[in-house]
């Protein structure tokens, strides 16, 4: 059997409704395999369970059923000690949505040092890790700045540096671009993709922006706590109806090709990304 780096088996999660006392299921039996070094986007409407899934993967939440394996180890087992949970969170880091809610120190470099300090890393090595992490996200010149004076995109990059300093193998971005302006979004996306490309870090990004999802290697579509689709952007965007029924979008370029095909135009090319669409349209004119 091939060993996936992260694997979930019939993973379920439900919470108790305060007013009725009844169990409200959020995830119904998720079976998912993620290999080391993959770049995955998870999309789905609000309440589809995508943030819950992300929070389960680094045990911010505990599953109510099923199992999660990371690197061959059952991390959802009741035998997990606090140390084990810390070790998991060091491997699987998470960047959240609100840039103002995740920085803890009053100086950028101290914020980045927070994680490795808690891991008990020797101070000389912390210095090295902080410098490396800030350089990697392009924030070296802001090392002595106050975080609250930074732009949203810069704050998110500091938050990313704080996780890099813990040397994770996987990073989860939970709508980390949602509150940013277009420039900030680009900064975070570029940083994310650099980490994937150059450091081979497994990237799982949760987003409402279909153009961001189109950049991943693989898209997982969640709908009402179940996996609706799982495939490459090409596969996912080639079949728009299920997406639209699930309250999602198809990127504009792909949508254009679908409309033309419906009009009987033969466009045999790919449509996964805007560049694919460009080539697909050009090919028809070059015949």
């Amino acid at each position, binding site marked *: 059997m091939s060993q996936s780096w992260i694997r979930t088996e019939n993973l379920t999660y439900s919470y108790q409704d305060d007013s009725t006392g009844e169990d409200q299921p959020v995830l119904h039996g998720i079976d998912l395999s993620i290999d080391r070094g993959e770049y995955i986007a998870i999309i789905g409407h609000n309440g589809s369970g995508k943030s819950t899934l992300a929070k389960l993967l680094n045990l911010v939440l505990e599953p109510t059923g099923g199992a999660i394996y990371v690197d061959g180890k059952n991390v959802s087992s009741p035998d997990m000690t606090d140390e084990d949970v810390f070790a998991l969170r060091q491997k699987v880091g998470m960047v959240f949505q609100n840039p103002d809610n995740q920085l803890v120190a009053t100086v950028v470099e101290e914020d980045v040092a927070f994680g490795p300090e808690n891991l008990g890393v020797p101070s000389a090595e912390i210095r090295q890790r902080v410098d490396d992490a800030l350089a990697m996200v392009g924030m070296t010149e802001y090392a002595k700045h106050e975080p609250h004076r930074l732009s949203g995109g810069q704050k998110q990059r500091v938050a990313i540096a704080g996780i890099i300093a813990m040397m994770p193998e996987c990073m989860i971005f939970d709508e980390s671009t949602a509150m940013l302006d277009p420039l900030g979004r680009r900064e975070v996306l570029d940083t994310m993709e650099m980490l994937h490309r150059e450091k081979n870090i497994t990237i799982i990004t949760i987003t409402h922006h279909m153009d961001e999802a189109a950049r991943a290697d693989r898209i997982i579509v969640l709908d009402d706590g179940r996996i609706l689709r799982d495939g490459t952007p090409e596969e996912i965007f080639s079949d728009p109806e299920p997406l639209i029924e699930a309250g999602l979008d198809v990127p504009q370029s792909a949508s254009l090709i679908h409309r033309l095909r419906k*009009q009987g135009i033969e466009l045999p090319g790919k449509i996964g990304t805007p560049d694919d669409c460009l080539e697909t349209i050009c090919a028809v004119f070059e015949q």
Partner: protein
Amino acid sequence: MSKITLENISYVYSPGTPFEMHALEGINLNIRENAITGLIGHTGSGKSTLVQLLNGLTRPTSGRVLLDGKDIWQEPKKIKQVRFRVGLVMQYPEYQLFEETVRADIAFGPKNMGLSAQEIAERVSEAALLTGLDESLLDHSPFDLSGGQKRRVAIAGVIAMRPEVLVLDEPAAGLDPRGRDTILNMLRDYQQKTGATVMIVSHSMEDMARFCDDIIVLAHGKLVMQGRGHEVFARSRELSDVGLNIPEISRLCLMLRERGIPMDDGIFTVEQAEQCLLRLLESREQRTEGYV
């Protein structure tokens, strides 16, 4: 007909100090009555400053803000009246909900206007209806609602003051595609039903292209473009040059032109791109047939 006119507006932060910063310089513009205007610009372009000038939250360093042709600062003591007439919905307004029930939260504005209990009740129902909030939700705590519903409650709270102008800063930010369309469609319905003037500030060119009648573009504190949506988006190359994101479909059309496919200038919706390509493909087919 212009509802709000800005005449040679400038705004300087911390004038006369080393931190002096010109947020807006020499802005002249008209916000058309009974239409939806979109305000576009980078972070730091002066958008937020401009929005705060419209309802008198800040006073321009120089120049005049005219509401129905009248300078809003003519009688500074009456500036509160202007704030009832020009309603402002901030970014992520759901973080500002605070009352125990949805009803009480929506009623907060009208109460401050000193209206009678009956008038307040009428306005709450009206605002709930206009924002698509079911009556049954009114007695719930706002904190039990979904993100999209909370945002509609916050907007209803401003609509309940029956403002003549409704200004919203990023009304769809952070919502999923369905939530985004619900809010934007609701605003369009609201505009059509009430005849109010609506202004939307957003970074999403795709949304602006779909929902706004007029577009205003700011960059570095100056007005760069102003006009009907199709006029502004017809200049997508210039928009792209000032570093603004243009809709993905506009970008695709510009790239097609670079590859020698004679797409029309200024395409900003998928429908327009489809029509244009169908036409080009058809004329190409006719030409090919001609050779046979």
